């Protein structure tokens, strides 16, 4: 890895405490490089998701700082963070969160149109390309309720990839899927990391799937207790 470049994403001693005094994440430091496929594991309530939201700029740490491509995000406004999420990050959640009123294609188009870098035709082409790559071309015109669980999650991944983000953050993306579909989602993540050089952070409690990642971060009670690279 090239040490001259700043890490893609870096958390420096971040702590997240709720106003009621509960500590979700305690003094966590993580560096994420391009092409890494990281599984965040731990028992329920260990702060895996909270750490992911902090790294995904959805939440702000009480202490410490999060740097995206070397840039400190602490001083950015909510709108600036939103723009960074739009352009640089992609989210996949356990629940697909597709807007039920819109077709699969339109759902994928939402972040592209919000960013506004592509003209209508180019935006549609980009969205179709993403759906095709995930084997979803024939589902483009369908509403989310007409899709199976696995297809919905693949549509959600396509949406996360819409603006060609550097980092994909996934929170229990296979939690609602059967084994076969779960494996397919991890195949996609592996490919995105290995072939396209994106950083993938996946929160999961499935130890078997976590083994397929090339780095595993284990949390207990909000603290990182191990950070191991496979191979």
């Amino acid at each position, binding site marked *: 890895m090239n040490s001259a470049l700043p890490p893609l994403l870096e958390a420096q001693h971040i702590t997240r405490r709720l106003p009621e005094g509960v500590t979700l994440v305690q003094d966590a430091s993580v560096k994420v490089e391009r092409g890494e496929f990281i599984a965040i594991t731990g028992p329920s309530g260990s702060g895996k998701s909270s750490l992911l939201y902090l790294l995904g700029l*959805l939440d702000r740490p009480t202490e410490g700082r999060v740097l995206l491509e070397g840039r400190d995000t602490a001083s950015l406004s909510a709108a600036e963070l939103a723009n960074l999420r739009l352009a640089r990050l992609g989210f996949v959640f356990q629940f697909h969160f597709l807007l039920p009123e819109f077709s699969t294609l339109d759902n994928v188009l939402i972040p592209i149109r919000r960013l506004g870098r592509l003209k209508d035709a180019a935006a549609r082409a980009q969205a179709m390309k993403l759906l095709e790559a995930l084997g979803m071309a024939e589902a483009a015109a369908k509403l989310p309720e007409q899709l199976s669980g696995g297809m919905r999650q693949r549509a959600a991944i396509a949406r996360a990839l819409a603006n060609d983000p550097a980092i994909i953050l996934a929170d229990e993306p296979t939690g609602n899927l059967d084994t076969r579909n779960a494996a397919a989602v991890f195949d996609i993540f592996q490919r995105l990391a290995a072939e396209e050089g994106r950083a993938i952070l996946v929160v999961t409690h499935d130890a078997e799937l976590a083994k397929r990642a090339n780095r595993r971060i284990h949390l207990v009670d909000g603290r990182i207790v191990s950070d191991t690279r496979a191979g």
Partner: protein
Amino acid sequence: MKLIFDLARGMLSRRRRQTLVSVMGVALGVAFFIAIASLMRGFQTYFIEQVIDVQPHIVVKDETRRPLPQAAEIAHPDGAVALSGVKPTERIRGIRASAEKMAILEGIPGVFSSPILTGQALLRYGSRDVSVSITGIEPARYRRVSNLEKDLIQGSMEDLRSTANGLIIGIGLAQKLGVGFGDTIIAISPKGISLQMKIVGIFRTGLTTLDNQAGYTLLKVNQILQDRPNVVNQILLRLNDVTAAEALARQIEARFGDRSESWEEQNRNVLTVFVIQNAIMYSVTGAILLVAAFGIYNIISTVVFEKTRDIAILKSLGFTEGDIQWLFLLQGMIAGLLGAALGCALGQIMIEGLAQIRFQTETPAGNDRFLLAHDWRIFAVASFFAILAASIAAVVPARRAARLDPVQTIRGAA
């Protein structure tokens, strides 16, 4: 912005029935507002037009608004002057130097004046006596300030000149006396002077008081009848611009001292009733719109509540608080806009319906139907307030939506 509009439209179109109900609420408010406003405005406009049409715009009278100041008050303007037991001097009533004043008034562009002398008289025909109010006019000038010529059903104003002691009377008066066109009657004034007069015209205005009690003759003839030679006791003015009447009346009064009343002042009681009428109308229709606004508030609140997940994902995707607020504000505005459009159509239908109604009354002016204003401004005002009310109603839930924390929602959904 187009994207947010598309999202708003998509969210609304999926709950069609709810949207339709709240849109109907707004539409009914708008429609009633339009119907009632055009009804009221129609009547008021008709009334004012009648007043402006029939009455002179300014009447200069041979009175003063306050008693004339006493010599001691003029000599000591700042002094504490108290006068008691003052007996007003007997002075000849009438507008002083009326010819000069009229010359000045005629000099103002767009102003036409006509001098008149009014007085009481008793008309006698056979054994019948009827007390009437006689107005002495100069036909050529009077024609410019009044509608008498239009209201004549027999004879003409010119006949006043060509006939010695000609008299024009109202139809009701003619029927009461039992006289017809061309008959000769006797007029007796309070001063005891009696003249033989010939009926040279009969008019009908539709106003009972005029038709039953008014007569017109030449100014000179009335001056003889009233024994007030060369006296004019009112100057009637008509203006091209009726809205300038009040200001001009104040100027004339300040300049000449004679009491001058604009048509607005003469009809102030009725015009005040209009103001109260309008206030009642606006508060009633405002209440309808308020209820409609609660409907909008209700639906947007429901949408925000149901769409918590969608709001969370949009925010995590990178939509700002402002985007989310717009998204829901737009939904309220769309509902308001649809309601306004539907309401305008409905209002037009209601106006058409009201226009079909006929009353079985026989008023002389022929008012057997509603007088309806067809004014696009009523539609514009109603639509504007409907959209405004809908937008305001949507602001509160939209702000709540914008402030939702996506992390909490996503955590809860997982």
